[in-house]
């Protein structure tokens, strides 16, 4: 799997990881090995 695909998978998992009744409204993940073109 390319790093691009890894990045996409990571974004998808972040999108899927929302749930109700919490308090965290925003996140920024700082990574090394981004290659997201």
């Amino acid at each position, binding site marked *: *799997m390319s*790093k*691009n695909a*890894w*990045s*996409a*998978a*990571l*974004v*998808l*998992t*972040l*999108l*899927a*990881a*929302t*749930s*109700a*009744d*919490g*308090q*965290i*409204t*925003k*996140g*920024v*993940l*700082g*990574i*090394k*090995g*981004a*290659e*997201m*073109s």
Partner: protein
Amino acid sequence: MAADAIARQYDVNKNSVKLYCEPGKGSYRPGTITFLAKKGASIDLDKIRESITATRLSGGTNMSVDYLEITATGTIQAGDKEMLLKGKDGPVFVLSDGPNAKDIVAKLRAAKDKVTSVTGQVQGWNGRFPVMLQALAKTSGQERLHLLVTGFETRK
């Protein structure tokens, strides 16, 4: 762009997820992924860990996390020894000064009644993906998480 493809395929607002990679030619350049909870929802850190662990990022990769910075709402509780951020649900955040944010917890304490949100880096979210995920798994479900505060918002 991966974000465009994801937005088309999953009918999400592509502006809610922003990917940034520093320009250059190296294989392991820094980048950020910014994401927002859906309206009325919250981001569950344990679910993020579980989801990432289910990908190949839990295996042999040198890709790493520098930090996970979150913005959280809730009520500030100022004790003698520690400052807490408590929401309706989810973990309680124990607040301490973040990198390059000296004395910010003292400023937070002074403004505690007007604070609407706190931004900071979640302790434990750094290192090479497989190593970090294993370490986080051992501490999953914790009711208290340490947040290294980098900023906060107040109502006027």
